[in-house]
């Protein structure tokens, strides 16, 4: 299962707001999501793909604005994301939580993020491992 270029572009705009990162970093996170979808079992991939679709396309259902999430104004998008994260409905909240959890793995792998947090390399290098 894939996350196509258009879907990556749209969800990147949302992720940039969620994590407070520049759009370039968010696009790399979206690319990570695409790679992740290709490596996990079909059932999990389908769930995540549906989650990405829903976050992208449900502003009308949740805040009454007939636009995809990436086309919302920043304030409307903040309101929209808050609908997911603070929803009374477990499935909505959990879907966003799972998307955030997977996206965070792509976020933490980003060199700019790791450098900013000063948490060292993502993976050990072989020569370091052999010490």
């Amino acid at each position, binding site marked *: 299962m894939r996350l196509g270029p258009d879907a990556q572009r749209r969800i990147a705009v949302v992720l940039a*707001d*969620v*994590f*407070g990162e520049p759009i370039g970093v968010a696009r790399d996170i979206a690319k990570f999501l695409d790679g*992740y979808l290709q*490596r*996990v*079992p079909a*059932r*999990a991939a389908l769930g995540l793909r549906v989650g990405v679709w829903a976050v992208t396309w449900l502003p009308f259902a949740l805040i009454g604005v007939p636009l995809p999430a990436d086309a919302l104004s920043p304030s409307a998008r*903040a309101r929209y*994301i*808050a609908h997911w*994260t603070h929803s009374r409905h*477990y499935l909505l*909240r*959990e879907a966003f*939580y*799972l998307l*955030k*959890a997977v996206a*965070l*793995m*792509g*976020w*933490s*792998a980003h060199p700019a993020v790791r450098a900013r*947090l*000063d*948490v*060292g390399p*993502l*993976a*050990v290098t*072989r020569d*370091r*491992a*052999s*010490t």
Partner: protein
Amino acid sequence: MSHGKDTDAADFVVVGSGAGGAPAALALAQAGRDVIVLEEGPEVREQDRGQGAAESLLRLFRDNGTQVAMGRSVIPVLQGRCVGGTTVVNGAIVWRLPEDAYERAFGSIGAKDAIPLAALEERMDRIERDLSVAPAPERLLGGNGSLMKRGSEKLGWEGHAIRRNVLDCQGSARCMEACPTKRKQSMEVTYLPRAVALGARIRADHEVRTIDMSASRAVGVTGVRGDGSPFRVAARLGVILAASAIQSPCILRRSGIGPREHVGSHFRLHPGTAVAGVYRDPVRLWEGATQSYEVDEFRRDGFKMEVVGLPVELAGVRLPGMGDAFQRAIADYPNMAVWGVQVRAEAEGTVSPASGRADLRYTPERADMETMRRGVRRLAEMHFAAGAVRVYPGVHGGPDVLESPDDLGKMDDLPLDPRCWSLISSHVFSTCRMAADERAGVVDFNGAVHGTRGLWVLDASALPTNLGVNPQHTIMALSSLLTERIA
């Protein structure tokens, strides 16, 4: 460790290479038996070690880290799926089975004569020598462990450095990514190579689907390799199922073996959650032992607490806020300590085979959630005692952040609905539980499946109940003891 041919045969086939299978394979090999170990997952290569949380989940965990138990809420259930099983990716915690847990597990089913505590302790002594088990030294406590020690001491709670199966730990805080320096004495670097040296053969990427039976006797196994090709291995003397409390019942169910009302039933967990505290001074979760210190003051009340060296991506999941608020919260990561609570839950769920996976059903009982709530309350209290300037409980419907001990009272009102919590579990039990006869369980006091010959279950699924402590030591000791009788 190579791929086998379709016509393999051995005295014993051991299904699974983790805490149950590896000691069984070693005991059989030591007794001079011809053994084949079949492991569904891949070998752990050098380049698989220490690659970060995401790569570890994708390469070394069951369902690439996406396995969940479904019920009122979704609970991730983490298990290793590689040569060495979960011992490769666990926190290296080695807990001797306490007497009260022994009584609850084996005393309650009348198995004390068949499985004396002294016999288990004898095996535990040997395992501890073999795996270089020792308390985490002071230098490896890290900021995370040192703070828990400080907090528990201030409160007068019983705590101690965690006893770990690590030889000359380098403190890279990557236990759960397969130790990058191979210092963790997990099964793929200890018992499995020893078994191979004695002639055992290990087949990675071999998923057993069914047990072959002839006149109620197990005579072999059938399955598929990682490349999709089928295989069969004949067992001249018997089959030992040690594929975990999730896979073992699935194999029995697919094979139509065992009392149907018990195989895959009585599924027990240690559900847990974590609470993060932010401190004035750096904590640096990425340094020291991944899990170095624990507090068992409340173990008899149903929960225990331990440090968890979460990487930033996992620590960040529970943080509130988005955008700038998220950035402010995550900027605290270097100063963050993360401590977990795991509950000896009373709830029982089910495990059954589904297409290409296991179907896990589980919902904690209200009493379990009350215990969980008491546990996170205690964690928050201990954070403040250790000097935390704020604490993130991470429970929906509760406060996003606690700013001082005066806020602790808010924890008493946390909702008990599991859908408000981020629960997780890595300890699974009892899906082929031990019992005197098949009216109450799946295996007898020797681990033999009731009503069969030549078929044993020697993993956490055979445990009569959950233990309330980290189970790998008990699983290994029980497997060793019972395999010595089989061999």
